[in-house]
């Protein structure tokens, strides 16, 4: 019964939009206005609407809605679905806080959740620290030719697939890997440093994976800054630090927000890097979600966990945007 909602909600939203559009048209009547079908013809208009509707409904709205309603159901075998046991319940969400098996606080999952969010925030910050100078150089300082080379050097490594990239990093950072051998060869350390166990590999891997996602919004934002602004600040006596603090960063804020949001969201939701580069004691939240879906076949609980992560990420991002006084519209520009 409740599964019917999945189909009813989009229809209700569409109906609401149609009503709003009608109301608007009556409110501000424009005689020169030509309707959608008038402009495009009936056939083409139907094709356009059909394609957009397919995209929005089939590929975006319905899958998510299906997952949402799934998360409010108990885990059932196929035979019981639609039967008397198929009720709406908050159990899946509750299980994130309280273990359903023993009634204890679910410390493992809670810890993994906060760990994931904290590390994602750290990775976002690290990424910003690396990308800001890079983006500034590309946008304002470097010559056109050098910038092209740099872009190429940034983009080409992403032609390599994620798994290969993660594993090669693993080889590099392993206890008998290149870096440890070098450090021991030079005599900086006697015993190999456990980079992977200490999650160094994870931080490096995640930062590297989303470098481009950070660089390009920053680059776009800084690139449109009038060079004279920087020179004017400098001429008025500002040090380089002040120029960045007072002129460049405030100007690039929407780009920074957009880059940070994306890196944070992607790294909190990433799967490959934590699995291959995380230490043995590290439990990434998406891995838990993955296991619910594919190991335990507990789709409702997996969906509930995924939505908890999504909601937390959105809330955090909105909070940050609020703190740094960036509007959502600017950040997704």
């Amino acid at each position, binding site marked *: 019964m409740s599964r019917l909602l999945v189909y009813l909600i989009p229809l209700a939203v569409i109906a609401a939009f149609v009503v709003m559009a009608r109301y608007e048209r009556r409110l501000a009547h424009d005689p020169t206005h030509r309707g959608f079908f008038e402009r495009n013809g009936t056939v083409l208009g139907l094709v356009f609407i059909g394609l957009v509707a397919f995209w929005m409904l089939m590929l975006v709205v319905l899958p998510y809605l299906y997952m949402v309603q799934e998360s409010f159901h108990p885990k059932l075998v196929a035979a019981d679905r639609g039967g008397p046991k198929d009720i709406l319940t908050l159990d899946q969400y509750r299980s994130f806080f309280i273990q359903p098996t023993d009634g204890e606080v679910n410390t493992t999952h809670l810890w993994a959740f906060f760990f994931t969010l904290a590390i994602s925030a750290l990775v976002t910050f690290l990424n910003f620290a690396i990308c800001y100078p890079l983006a500034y150089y590309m946008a304002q300082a470097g010559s056109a030719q050098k910038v092209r080379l740099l872009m190429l050097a940034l983009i080409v490594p992403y032609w390599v697939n994620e798994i290969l990239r993660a594993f090669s990093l693993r080889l590099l950072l392993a206890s008998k890997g290149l870096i440890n051998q070098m450090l021991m060869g030079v005599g900086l350390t006697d015993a190999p440093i456990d980079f992977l166990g200490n999650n160094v590999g994870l931080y490096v891997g995640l930062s590297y994976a989303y470098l481009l996602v950070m660089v390009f919004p920053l680059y776009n934002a800084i690139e449109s800054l009038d060079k*004279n*602004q920087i*020179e*004017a600040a*400098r*001429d*008025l*006596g*500002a040090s380089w630090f002040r120029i960045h603090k007072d002129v460049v960063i*405030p100007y690039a804020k929407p780009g920074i927000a957009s880059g940070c949001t994306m890196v944070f969201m992607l790294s909190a939701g990433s799967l490959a890097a934590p699995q291959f580069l995380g230490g043995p004691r590290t439990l990434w939240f998406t891995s838990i979600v993955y296991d619910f879906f594919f190991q335990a076949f507990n789709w409702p609980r997996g969906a509930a966990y995924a939505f908890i992560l999504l909601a937390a990420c959105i809330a955090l991002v909105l909070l940050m945007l609020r703190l740094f006084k960036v509007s959502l519209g600017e950040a997704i520009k």
Partner: protein
Amino acid sequence: MSADVELDRVTVRFGQFTAVSGASLKIAGGEFFSFLGPSGCGKTTILRTVSGFLDPSEGAVRIAGQDMTGIGPNKRPTALIFQNLALFPLMTVAENITYGLRVRGMSKADRMKKADELLSLIALPGQGGKLVSELSGGQRQRVAIARALAVEPKVLLLDEPLSALDLKLRQHMRTELRAIQQRVGITFIYITHDQGEALTMSDRIAVMNNGVIEQIGDGKVVYDAPKTAFVASFVGGNNPFPGHVSKADASGAVIDTPFGPLRGRNPMGVKAGDKAILFVRPEALRLGKGAPDATITSTVLSVAFEGNASHIFLKGAAKKDITLTVGRLERVTIPEQGVEAQVTYDPDLGLVLPEGSMARE
């Protein structure tokens, strides 16, 4: 507090290209000095060299006697007003004006006091809380001036700051800039391609072409006694008559042109046989017949009425037309298009200069 600025054989190169070559001059403290020239003549390069954004490839810039080599723009006693003003769009007017003081660590209360002072200087009292985008073009102009003056520079550098304004406002701002300069008494170095701006505001003008300073002098000297063909053709309208010099002495020279021999003063000492150009200003030409070596006969191409004056265009020797300007109140009959007319001039107002590059129209 003002300071003199000295350019000592300043040469600036960008790779193979020489933007400024061997510029030497001394600007006195408190002077309003303009660099005038077409775009690409090197005037902006000079300004950037004085402000410290560029280092000369050769030679040195001295401000108040002190060599500025290696001193960055944030450490020089200069302030620059950019062509596009470069006001900070995310800061209020008051924040813009006091930015230089903020980076110097002045307390907020002092800054606000200073902002009020400067806002009344530029006739925008009480507007400190506005955003720059809420101001008109002329107001932004004044904010840019106040922002530069706030740091109490000894030299103010202005890079064509009026070029974005419309004509009326531009003319008004000329007077205003000059007044501000006289009030604060510091050295102004002004860059422009607009000779009107340079002539009305400056104490002295350096006319530049292709990276070389062609002539330095006050407005009257540059206009009345240009030393090169470029200066004569760039500053104010002028009618060139190129040809070979047939007779020359200290009092004057006669030059053979397609309109016959024409006479003019000979300040640069051209000799018989030299290639030279006779320049006669449009307002020095008048309709009628005069001495045979100061009379030109040609066809009237068109007449343009401009209110206070009319311009008569006659067919010239080369591609360029001859322009003659008649004041509104002069009692002459303006010839009709297509007729043959005779024009003449006082040979003392004709100027024979050695051949050289001319300003493009």
